């Protein structure tokens, strides 16, 4: 069944009311996820270990003839350092990690917001996106708990902007509700927070 977008579009105060209801639902689900993390005793570590670069260079060079030019060109601290740093940074954008933080509904809202960034230039959306990029960088440097919460807030903020920049149509509402239910289930299944937490207990 194809739902035509223009069957049901809210305008005016009904649109604002519905957007606030959706926003409150998101706040509720995100608060639930925050509360779940209160049992975490040891958050996952995203820090970059500079020793990894040295180990990588030396282990790669063992497969090359000694003093080989190609070995020096391809396996050096600059190239390997850039590669490992980039890899560490992009760990924050693992789909299952993002879903673990904001759920399916949050990821849906974020993708919606990204398509709007591609089409229109809205300063607030750009700032929210920039906040995500900076806070994911902070994950690799600062305290695990604080930087992870900071990153989560940046993702939640970006998800919220989708609610307020989108037209409320029947299709949007149905997808949102469906994904919200999936998100609740997903948060319950992943009670152990395997993507975020190494040790969790509420006892």
């Amino acid at each position: 069944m194809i739902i035509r977008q223009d069957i049901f579009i809210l305008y005016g105060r009904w649109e604002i009311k519905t957007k606030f209801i959706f926003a409150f639902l998101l706040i509720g689900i995100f608060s639930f996820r925050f509360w779940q993390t209160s049992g975490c005793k040891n958050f996952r570590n995203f820090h970059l270990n500079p020793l990894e670069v040295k180990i990588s260079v030396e282990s790669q060079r063992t497969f090359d003839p000694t003093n080989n030019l190609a070995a020096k060109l391809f396996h050096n601290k600059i190239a390997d350092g850039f590669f490992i740093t980039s890899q560490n940074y992009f760990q924050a954008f693992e789909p299952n990690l993002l879903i673990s933080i904001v759920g399916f509904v949050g990821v849906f809202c974020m993708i919606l917001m990204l398509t709007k960034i591609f089409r229109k230039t809205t300063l607030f959306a750009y700032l929210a996106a920039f906040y995500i990029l900076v806070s994911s960088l902070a994950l690799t440097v600062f305290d695990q708990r604080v930087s992870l919460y900071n990153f989560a807030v940046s993702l939640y903020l970006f998800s919220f902007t989708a609610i307020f920049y989108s037209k409320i149509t029947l299709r949007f509402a149905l997808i949102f509700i469906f994904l919200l239910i999936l998100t609740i289930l997903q948060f319950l299944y992943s009670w152990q927070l395997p993507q975020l937490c190494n040790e969790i207990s509420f006892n």
Partner: protein
Amino acid sequence: MAVARNHLIILCLIILIGIFFRFYHLSSNPPGLYWDETVFGYDAYSVFKTGRDHHGRFSPIFFESFGDWKLPVYHYLLVPSIAVFGLNEFAVRFPSAFLGSLSIILIYLLSKRLTNNNKVGLWSALFLAISPWHIQFSRGGFESTAGLFFLLSGSYLFLRSVEKPAIIKILSSFIFFGLSIYSYHAYRIFTPLLVISLIFIFHKKLKKFISKLIVPAVIIIFLLLPIIVFSFSSQGRSRAISQSVFKDDQLEQTRLDFDQKSKKPLRFLSGYIFNKPLFYSYQAFKGYFDSFSPVFLFFRGDQIGRHSQVDMGQIYAFELILIIFGLYSLRFVPKEMRVIIITWLLISPIPSSIVTPTPHAYRTLQLIIPLAILSGLGANRLFTSNNILIRLLVPAAIVFSTLSFSHLLFVHYPKKFAADWQDGYKEMVNQIKKYQNDYEKIYVTNINQVPYIYLLFYLKYDPQKFISENGSRESFDKYFFISDEADISNQGRLLYVAPSWKKVDGKWLAAVNDNSSRHIYSLWEVGNKN
């Protein structure tokens, strides 16, 4: 005219680059034949010589192999290859490398048709030609590469037939789709989903010539009947069951964790949410999203050594930027074609989402096509920029990354991943050949699994003799395959091929090393009282 000629020259160069990456040192890199490659080769050799597989089945549609029931297309592609090149590593890998090279032409044609832009077609062809992901599977005897070729052919012909309907084009398209389904297990799921999507996208156009669809549809349904029946049989489901992500013990473990470690007021939910449909759907979604992991795609790849370089992603890291620009550039692509690219991207991980492990490069090989097209779109957009620095950076990134990959592929890979490719078996058989005439019994350790197929392959053992003597994975002729715990002290005088670490009460004869000089096996004479 001059532009068209230039494009043709560039395409030819790209194809040559692709051929180089797929054929250079094909026999020796990857080092050693993986056991699936070996059984493909020997079954094809057996079909060539006797018309039967090595289990004695005449012209099988499905090959029993090691009990995992493989699909037929790659086996039958190997028959002419082995007839021409003989039973060796090159012959086993040739169809994959050849069809992988032809796929470069097909992605050029497909991409050009989807984006209506010749330059994007060339860029997409380049990114497939140098793609670490596609090269890795083109250099081994992998069914997925052949299946991808048929998938590309079917898709291209389908698009051609939508524009200018002709029964022969439609039938060819359906036959190629059917061949992809008969090539590899993942395409049993992916190809029908893609075809349904294409029909849905073009349903208005297809309605205008529906009469031309009836005969091809009937023919292809008839041709697919065997695989439909097979898919529901115990043999057809054996592989999927063994790799399935839907395990009862995992459901129970997760429920226990929830009951023990969650907040008490919420524990009543345990009985409602931990049911199979919901939990298995959750497992499948997790597996699905693993395939879009940026670490898997751009940095570390599949951690199975046969499926990637492991030290780099499935595709190049710089393609991350290109794909972002490619996604932005999709808005300039005709709507129907845009939907095809996005649909292909979204349904590619579905076959791997229901099995473990994930992410899995082999089962999601079809994902390389939309990624190459998006990279092509992004590269075209950047390369047409007025900024001279960007126009220099794009080719510089491509050249450096490709050279770096070449270094990993041709220098590191044969040494680093010898064990993943069962390297050492050929050398083992060569050593056995030197001594076997002096012994009436030869015992071989099965520590690295299915040694019998390597002996059959490298000895070029007569398949008719193997079948008529009821040879098996336990023994054939004077060869016996045993575990390390087996007691052979009372078996009389024999040649024993033991793991390198095992101390044997006998006379040491020779060592077997693989290409990276690892000591794998030792040959011993056992039971000689003199």
